[in-house]
């Protein structure tokens, strides 16, 4: 029989409170890590999307300025190389090619094809182009991977305005 002036908790109460506390902590921890993962995935994917748009806009800007273009296979089956010439010139104006070392598309400048570095900071998994006709080039597949490995795809077409 319990006395009225007893203090403290019984073993059952302590156990019950412990179990509830552990469940609450586990739920909160799980929620925190899930939220953090979702946040990081979303952020890195949004960055990859922006990078994709930037690459497409950068290509569009230079293709529009060019008078002619050439698409060559390589360096592997998923990536191609785009070479641009200005109207009336036989010297290369720009070249865009994928480097296996960093997995990015680089911009090479001038007749000596000086490497100006990657045109974006995202890894490019696929860079494929299709010539439609001498005045129109299709970016058939631009596929980027985010830091977390999620893929972003884009395709577009660019006209040569200075033929």
């Amino acid at each position, binding site marked *: 029989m319990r006395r009225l002036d007893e203090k403290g908790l019984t073993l059952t109460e302590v156990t019950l409170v412990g179990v509830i506390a552990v469940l609450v902590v586990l739920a909160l921890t799980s929620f925190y890590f899930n939220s953090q993962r979702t946040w990081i995935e979303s952020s890195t994917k949004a960055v990859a999307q922006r990078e994709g748009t930037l690459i497409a806009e950068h290509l569009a800007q230079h293709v529009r300025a060019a008078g002619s273009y050439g698409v060559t296979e390589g360096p592997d089956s998923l990536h191609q190389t785009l070479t641009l010439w200005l109207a009336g010139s036989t010297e290369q104006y720009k070249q865009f090619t994928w480097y296996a070392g960093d997995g990015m598309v680089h911009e090479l400048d001038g007749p000596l094809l000086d490497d100006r570095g990657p045109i974006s900071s995202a890894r490019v998994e696929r860079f494929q182009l299709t010539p*439609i006709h001498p*005045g*129109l080039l299709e970016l058939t597949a631009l596929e980027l991977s985010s830091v977390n490995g999620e893929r972003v795809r884009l395709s577009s077409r660019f006209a040569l305005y200075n033929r």
Partner: protein
Amino acid sequence: MVRLPRELPDGAERGFSLIEVLVATVIATVAVVGLAYTFGLGRSYIDRFETARAALAAAEARIETLVTSPTTSPDLIRDIEHSTPFVVGGKTLGVVRWWVQFVNDPSDGTYSDPNPDDLRKVFIEVEWAQGGVTDRVRLTRVLPAS
């Protein structure tokens, strides 16, 4: 040294009542579920923007194609709706529509000239449905009539 009384005065209770605990639990649950919902919502917006970017690229691709098309191209027949599927990564997500109208160039100062078809105005719309929501991207470009 002050000693605390061993017994509480009459009417004074310690701890929480069941109702208080239930109300606090409900409020905490609503807050956590609301927070989780915002993360899911943010994620769905990111996916939606991805398709929107692809749609904008598709609309620009259509404009570039029309810019280089001969004026006799069937794609440039005026006042009818043209369409083609909106495809991303091999999957059809919606439709690309465009139509062409001739407009008078007000800068030539001849509003009532016998041939008011000075320019060709192309309207392009990409429409797709995602997550029960229909989205659209619209672009307009004015091209020479010939």
